[in-house]
């Protein structure tokens, strides 16, 4: 069965690129383009109403929510906290840390520095 990627991303071009790339690589992709639907999704996963994704790709800067809050929500849930997670951002992890974001041990990738092909490699490694 195809692995399922949950993509939380607001930029339509990026969504388009990743969907094409991930589907091309044989993944199932579900995209959520704002923070609220991400929160709702986590809740319904927690309630067993939705399937558990294999990996979550989380953008930090979203139009309505701070990605950090979503991250916290994910780490709170019993079912969601163990899901593989990569933070995708336009900022480097050092930059995010300096701005006061506590990412813990979370893997953080800068979008512009990683092509979709490279990203897929990383995801594949992550899901092994």
């Amino acid at each position, binding site marked *: 069965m195809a692995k399922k990627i949950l993509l939380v991303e607001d930029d339509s*071009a990026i969504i388009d690129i990743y969907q094409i*790339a991930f589907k091309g690589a044989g993944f199932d992709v579900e995209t959520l383009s704002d923070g609220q639907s991400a929160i709702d999704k986590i809740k319904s996963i927690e309630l067993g109403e939705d399937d558990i994704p294999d990996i979550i790709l989380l953008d930090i*800067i979203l139009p309505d929510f701070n990605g950090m809050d979503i991250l916290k929500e994910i780490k709170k849930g019993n079912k969601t906290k163990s899901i593989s997670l990569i933070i995708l951002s336009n900022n480097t992890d050092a930059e995010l840390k*300096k701005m006061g974001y506590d990412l813990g041990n979370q893997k953080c990738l800068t979008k512009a520095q990683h*092509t979709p092909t490279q990203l897929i490699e990383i995801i594949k490694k992550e899901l092994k």
Partner: protein
Amino acid sequence: MNGFAISGLFFVAIPAVIIGPFLLIKGRKKIHLIWTAFLTSVAWWGFGIYKIATVSGIKESLFWLKVAEIGVIFIPVFLVHFVMAFLGLRRKILLAFLYVSTVGFLYLNIFTNYFLNDLYFAFDQFYYPFATPIYTLFIFIFFSSVIYSLFELLRTYRKRIGIIKSQIKYLILAFIIGFSGGATSFLPAYKINVYPAWNGTIFVSVLMVSYAILRYRLMDIRVVFRKIFIYIGMAGLTYGLFYLVAWGYIKLFGEIFTTNSYLLGIIVAPLFVLLFIWFNKLFIIIANKYFFFKLYNYQKTINKLTKELNYHIDLKKIIDSIVDTIKDTMQLNRAGVLLVKKEKEDIHYRIAKVIGFNEDNGISLVQDNFLTRYLEKTKRPLVAEEMVILAKDSEKPSDRKSFAQLSQNMKKIEASLCLPLISRNRLIGIIVLGSKISGDAYSEEDLNILDILAKQAAIAIENARLYQQVQNFNKTLKQKVAEQTKEIRKAYEVEKKAHEELKRLDKAKDQFILATQHHLRTPISGMLGYLDLLFGGSFGKIPKKIGGALQRFQSATKILSKLVDEFLDISQLQIGRKVVALKPNVELNPLLDEIMEEVTMEAETKKLSIKLEKDKSLPKIIADPEKLKTALFNIIDNAIKYTAQGGVVIKTSKSDSHIQIEVQDTGKGIPQQDLELLCKKLFERGDKADKFYATGRGIGLFMSTLIIEAHNGKIWAESQGQDKGSSFFIQLPIK
């Protein structure tokens, strides 16, 4: 010698003879002269009495009687004249009549027997005359004069106040005592058998009047009575004890002047001395109680006031106490306290409290510096009435004037007494008192007591003032502290606000940077993402022509991405945020190896040689490897870019304090004038900025400079000039 002779000689003649000249020495004013004349006639009479009482023949007695009467005839006219002069009355007709009648009586006494004629042997001791009708007329005029004098004295007594009132009181008392005793001398002339020795009272009278004339204040009837009581008491005790012992001795042994009696005297003497002390005290207590009761009140006053002054520290209360206590105890109509206020050389007085005074008048006194100096000098109470006398007696005209002015001033504000308040030899104020409601003058005792009170008051006032000063100082200090605290708090608030504002701005700035990074990088991510998909075949096979264009599109986008990153890094460095994250134990050589790998392709394309000469024993340093790599990459990359022929040599070396990296090229070089500007900030390059942008060294080099500086390192360039190549030096500290 009988009693009549003794009284005449010792109680009339001798005192009068002694006092008369004494008065003349003391003063030669009209009243002194008239009183001396009066005393002379009294003395004359006294000697006459002595002769009458001691001669035996009837003819001789008549002669001496006529002699003695000459003195008596003068007494009424001198009495009236003295009283008129003392009271300042003008009764010319009355005096003229009295002088004429005196001359008449003198004529009749000396040249005829109408005045005195028949004698009789009185009391089995001496001859005494019968009163003739003329003699009776004389006695009538005599007593009329006495009564008239007393009447005038009483009339004035009721009107006047102060010293003159006291003096009049003594005169009235003296005349009543003197003349009531002296008048007994007339009684035997009418066969009334009263022994005429009562004229001894004249002695007391003469003394009192003389004293009243000479002294204006010392004479206080209570004092006199007190002293007389004590002396009579002591004398009575002495005589009484002596006579008691003598009487008892005679009763028992019959004879007094024996050896045994002298022996007894020796025994009695110490007993007497022992008793004397005890009796003296007893008499003084009794005298004080009955004749000097006010002194008792005064002592109580002093005690009370002292207690209050010690109890209070508040200036106002102290002054209230002083003024109220003195006024009430002395029964005064006015009392007040003025305090000295010194301003430079001028002395002013401030009214602390006054009762009964008109405050508007007070000012004229209180500006008187002569008063201040005088009180400071004498340190004694100043009596207004004495000032009149001082004004007359002063030898210096200036003093005379000043005293006169003072006396006028005191009169104007109706003050009778000024008490200096002296503290540490300096006048700090004055207690100003009016007159006694009774009209009595201030006695010596009063002044002594007031003097003591003033001294206590001065200490209390000075203490209160010092206390007030301390209080004021404390208050000012507290105020100052409060003010400063307020200011500090205010400054702190401002600081805090500024700090919060800065924090807010800092946060806003962070948010802005984050957002800028996000917004600038997002489209580039998109562009690179699509290019990646295109090349990956997601959109099908790419035609060759398009493929080449897309390749250039991709490399341009990569450059754009890099520029954006640099731009963001610079902007962060510019606003003070350290982009470098320093780590220990960073090795430089592997970094250079990585750079070499990346640039070799470009160098080979340009057919340039590139060489890395490593010092293999370089120590590890503290650095941000990623950023340091960027910085070095920029410099090496630049060197390749701006070198057309030859090559680039990179050398590393070390010293005690730092590692050095030299990047040497054979490129177009840098003109001397540009060398200094090279590593400076973009916006400080002035008119050269365009040129640097054009040649492309701009952002990369500047970025490198910022990173090296963030590592506490140094960067500079050297060049021999145009087309002679250039060398960049980078030094990084080892520790």
